[in-house]
């Protein structure tokens, strides 16, 4: 069975249907990209997978490593190994990044019946991972995302990804607002984490990121539906012709 399997997923927010029947399967080791214009439902899909209670799932099924994902509480989805890199990471004033991440990692380990890391082991781990994603160590002591620049917030998401080592990482526009150097660092971070048992769902607005993170499959999302799927060349096609072509197809 696939790592993630989405079947005919429908979801709404405040009575407005946003996802209108999504089908998608990601195998272990694969990286998929979802592209689509603003408002097409990309973040909605990401948050529905994460279990954001503001969305209501009105139809369909989602299986993650054979578990019915939609039945799990958001924290249990995370503990099972679903990670979402948020498009807009929130700030948590007064809570240090280190403290936060230690609480997160240990909650996950506990759920899995693994031993919690002690302070020394944990510090060693985060220092090493911070280095690997080129995150300034000073940010470890600062409150979570509080006063971080746009780029720092995105890098912090990748850093958390590197520490938590999920089985599925969904990255929602992690590239937006990054300059080319930051983009490269983020892409390098992601690429170094790609492995046989891990899957990625990379959501992006631009084709640019996909020059660095080469996807196995690309899907075009429009008005809450996947209107086309293909290989990495689909991203290039989009770059040239834009979404207009698909607008017509969808209409």
């Amino acid at each position, binding site marked *: 069975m696939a790592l993630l399997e989405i079947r005919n997923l429908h979801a709404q927010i405040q009575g407005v249907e946003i996802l209108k029947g999504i089908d998608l399967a990601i195998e272990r080791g694969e990286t998929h990209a979802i592209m689509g214009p603003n408002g097409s439902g990309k973040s909605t899909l990401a948050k529905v997978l994460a279990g954001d209670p503001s969305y209501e799932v009105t139809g369909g099924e989602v299986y993650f490593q054979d578990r019915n994902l939609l039945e799990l509480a958001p*924290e249990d989805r995370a503990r099972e190994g679903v990670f979402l890199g948020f498009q807009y*990471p929130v700030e948590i004033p007064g809570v240090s990044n280190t403290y936060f991440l230690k609480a997160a990692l240990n909650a996950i380990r506990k759920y899995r019946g693994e031993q919690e890391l002690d302070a020394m082991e944990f510090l060693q781990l985060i220092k090493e991972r911070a280095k690997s994603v080129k995150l300034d160590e000073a940010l470890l002591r600062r409150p979570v995302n509080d006063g971080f620049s746009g780029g720092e917030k995105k890098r912090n998401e990748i850093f958390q990804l590197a520490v938590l080592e999920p089985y599925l990482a969904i990255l929602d526009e992690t590239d937006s607002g990054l300059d080319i150097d930051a983009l490269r660092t983020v892409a390098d971070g992601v690429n170094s984490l790609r492995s046989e048992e891990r899957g990625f769902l990379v959501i992006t607005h631009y084709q640019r990121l996909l020059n660095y993170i080469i996807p196995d499959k690309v899907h075009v999302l429009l008005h809450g539906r996947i209107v086309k799927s293909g290989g990495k060349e689909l991203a290039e096609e989009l770059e040239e012709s834009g979404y207009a072509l698909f607008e017509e197809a969808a209409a």
Partner: protein
Amino acid sequence: MSATTKTLEELTNRKYEAGFITDIEQDTVPPGLDEDIIRFISEKKAEPEWMLEWRLKAYRNWLQMPVPQWANVYYPPIDFQAISYYSAPKRKEDMPQSLDEIDPKLKETYDRLGIPLHEQEMLAGVAVDAVFDSVSVATSYKAKLREKGIIFCSMSEAIQEHPELVRKYLGSVVPYTDNYYAGLNSAVFTDGSFVFIPKGVRCPMELSTYFRINAANTGQFERTLIIAEEGSHVSYLEGCTAPVRDENQLHAAVVELIALDDAQVKYSTVQNWYPGDEEGRGGVYNFVTKRGLCAGNNSKISWTQVETGSAITWKYPSCVLRGDNSVGEFYSVAVTRGRQQADTGTKMIHMGKNTRSTIVSKGISAGHGQQSYRGLVRITPKAENARNYSQCDSMLMSATCGAHTFPYIDVQNPTAQLEHEATTSKIGEEQILYCNQRGIATEDAVSLIVNGFCKEVFRTLPMEFAVEAQKLMEITLEDSVG
């Protein structure tokens, strides 16, 4: 409680030594207030004539004062004739005989705060002899303090033993004409704490009323006076995190702090009086006047309060910055939930040159809790180069609670620099989702977020108090999001 608990336990195992509290007689006066009652109180306490005169003047003045109506709190009018102004401690037969007789919820909270059984009994007012054992703790500390010339005793004792100090300073910061409840307190106060730190002495330990828990019955009209002479330092802790039950609904305490040249006084409070039931019935009305006078140059007074209890809180720990270069600080965390109401804040009165003040107020409202921050920053004409920084943050945890801010500013000197920041945030569903998405359960997420929100205030508390305050916050706000 942890650190103090240990010492308490060690010390309560020793036998009762000398009396911290003078003999308690078994008298109670009937409800009502007139000059005879005040004479009775004064006589019971064998007070000198000047003390009685002062009380009577306060009483006569109080009779002329209107009940304050300006606070943003609502309660039925208080019948001051229905209160008994002098009561000896209850007889043992009238007290709960064991913890089984107290509210199981209270008991549960004690257990979760990790308070040993013995202390639970004290706090819940169970009839046990051990209550009086805590007296010996205070006694042994007192000896240590006395070596340094520090006086730490009950107000009653101070009136007897150090009349010149009491006479000089009592009412010098909060005169009996100040406000309605301070006026009432001046007339009828029964006891409280007295602290005197002589010139150049740093008090070697945190002074805590906790060691005088047996005096809790005097808490209804408590009177505290702390004097720090030139160059001295003292840190005083009031209250404890455990919920304290009290059958007296009205609490009208007065606290006065005086810092002379180069002296520093730090006053920390954790207030967790009974807030009443779900409908707010039976909770304590906490109408307190707290004020510090930075009388000397380069002096500093710092208030920290963590207010989680009481049905109604009406409280503005303030600083009068009279000395040049003096510093006033106010750090506050207030929580209102259920039907609790709080109108709290501070006043910073800048009189000296180069005076500085900092206000950090964190309000958390949940359930139907209502909270107002009310603060005044006044820069008087002679206060050259005064500075104030104010920050008022409110966090809302439900759709039915409320937060209000009333910052008053009165600047009469153009060299003043004032900064004011205010935020209101709903405890973010987004913040909680973010934590959940990293594997952190909602309950843990809430305490993480709330403790982060309060961090600037908690870090001004003495270490073990800070840990307790955090735990208290977790228990208080459990199940509060929604």
